[in-house]
């Protein structure tokens, strides 16, 4: 089994705070001091697998060789100082949002906290960072009270959906009345109408876009898919 050595260069100075610089990124390039022996490793990796994993190993090898070529042109043996951009924000203190800095009119501005966390997560999704034990992230979204979430997210959507349901309901009530002469109060007493009402409410809640119908079908399939895979060996037996 050939072995290979690679060493990591240590972490580097931070860039100034994120709000002032645009999203510049310096490529983190830990492979710089790799020897070209690396591709031999995949031959040995292939030997450890039982042969049938060969297709996957070949893919990796190809991908890897192009990467090695890239790096050789970039690096020249001497390790380049890596510049790492980290998430920095004056209100982000010791791994959590400093609520004292979010005060507005004497009370905490929870919307601003939510906005700040959204920006942080977006930043981290685009620039993943190393998790460091000396600067642990301890922010928990549950410190934001439930009513702040309601006000910001639930209420506008609830308004929208209730509006839709009301419009559909009014039209359906009118339509049924015009067809059958049964008024609104009498409609509510009828089982079929109550069922229609239930379907309408469920539809408004579950289906917001056309794609949601497919999504729901897929979800229902998903819940039983694993079971079917396990039962497969028993289907065989029933056929006997």
């Amino acid at each position, binding site marked *: 089994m050939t072995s290979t050595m690679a060493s990591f260069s240590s972490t580097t100075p931070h860039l100034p705070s994120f709000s002032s610089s645009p999203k510049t990124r310096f490529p983190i390039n830990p492979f710089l001091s790799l020897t070209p022996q690396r591709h031999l490793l995949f031959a040995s990796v292939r030997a450890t697998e039982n042969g049938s994993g060969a297709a996957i190993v070949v893919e990796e090898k190809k991908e890897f060789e192009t990467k090695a070529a890239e790096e050789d042109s970039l690096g020249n043996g001497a390790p380049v100082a890596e510049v790492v951009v980290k998430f920095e924000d004056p209100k982000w203190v010791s791994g959590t949002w400093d609520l004292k800095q979010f005060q507005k009119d004497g009370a905490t501005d929870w919307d601003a906290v*939510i906005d700040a966390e959204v920006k942080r997560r977006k930043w981290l999704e685009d620039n993943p960072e190393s998790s460091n*034990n000396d600067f642990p992230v301890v922010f928990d*979204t549950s410190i934001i009270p439930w009513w702040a979430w309601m006000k910001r997210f639930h209420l506008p959507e609830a308004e929208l959906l209730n509006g839709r349901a009301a419009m559909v309901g009014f039209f359906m009530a009118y339509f049924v009345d015009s067809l059958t002469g049964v008024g609104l109060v009498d409609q509510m007493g009828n089982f079929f109408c109550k069922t229609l009402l239930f379907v309408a409410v469920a539809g408004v809640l579950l289906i917001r876009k056309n794609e949601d119908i497919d999504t729901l079908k897929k979800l229902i399939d998903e819940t039983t898919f694993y079971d079917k895979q396990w039962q497969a060996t028993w289907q065989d037996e029933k056929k006997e």
Partner: protein
Amino acid sequence: MASVTLKSFIGLRQSSPENHHPSITILSKPLPSNQIHYRRLNVIAGKSSPKITGRNLRVAVVGGGPAGGAAAETLAKGGIETILIERKMDNAKPCGGAIPLCMVGEFDLPLDIIDRRVTKMKMISPSNVAVDIGRTLKPHEYIGMVRREVLDAYLRDRAAAAGATVINGLFVKMDKPSDKYAPYVIHYNAYDGKVGSAGKKVTVEVDAVIGADGANSRVAKSIDAGDYEYAIAFQERIKIPDDKMEYYENLAEMYVGDDVSPDFYGWVFPKCDHVAVGTGTVTHKPDIKKFQLATRLRARDKIVGGKIIRVEAHPIPEHPRPRRLSDQVALVGDAAGYVTKCSGEGIYFAAKSGRMCAEAIVEGSENGRRMVEESDLRSYLEKWDKTYWPTYKVLDILQKVFYRSNPAREAFVEMCADEYVQKMTFDSYLYKKVAPGNPLEDLKLAVNTIGSLVRANALRNEMAKI
């Protein structure tokens, strides 16, 4: 004895009140009466399988990992003539190497096999929120980290001590018998410890075969067991400086995030004197190197100054093969596809399924005095599915809910901070029983889970607006 076998069989077919998972009711679809007659005939026929004269039942176990070793030992102890065929005796397999506490007790593993006892885990979310779990562990509870070459060799040696013949060879193919009780002919290349040689072609006749030859099982291919979806697990073993190694003394880390894996997790597991940093994926296999880089990036500050000493990869089955047995050939372990979702755990299940299959053979053959039938092996499948289905299903649900997307993973890590969750997780993991738990706490947990998911998804929707 025939009626007892009959009752347990039918008992599975009907939905019994104490079963609290849906799969058994699926199994209990009422069979038309003519089929039931056929089933009864089948079982009675099994009972009258011919006695073997002059020798004991011969069984070949193909593959000498935990599944093969455990199966061979149980068979040998049961008085059956066993051969165990293993192609590489010192195989250092690419593997996380984590075994639950119950395995140490159930398989009487000596404590010196365990390199490290992990008693703390750190779960790290996509936004680097880090949660420590393990406070609820009692002092005697731990996750054992083993070197596969040490564990596998130990189990094989124990099988040999019990009377199994351990053969260094590579299984090539198997001739199926034309007759019902005719033997299977196994073709293998005997290496006899010589490295690099093509080996001597040997054939041996056996009455039953246990396929324990792993994810790329040749035995499975020869019985047309069908394929499964598999994940690629990629791992780099990194030797880090001693002061950094101290941090991983008894701690393992799990990184979740789209950067690390779209449908699995990245890990840093401590091994004997180095750490294993790896990740896996089912749906985006060509990008595995990218995911590995991302995992190393996330752990960078903790593994800085490390040297990669080995790179390895292997397929991991995601679900059982469509056919796990055919006549007198049964699959166990990775060959059958018994790896859990969510955690990707397979060592314990491999060993346990090997043992269960062997026990079924010993019982069905009355300690090697009679031939075995397919129905004897089916009873192993029944017992396995009945015992471990809840565990597999719960882990599948967890994977579907919490590995879906970044908000789901953030919610997952938030939930892990809860002590009740930690206790339930460790109890289920360490003892392989889905612990029932306290209904009030379960309700609170459900509410908190939904809350976390809602919050994380709300944040995610806002993120899309930026």
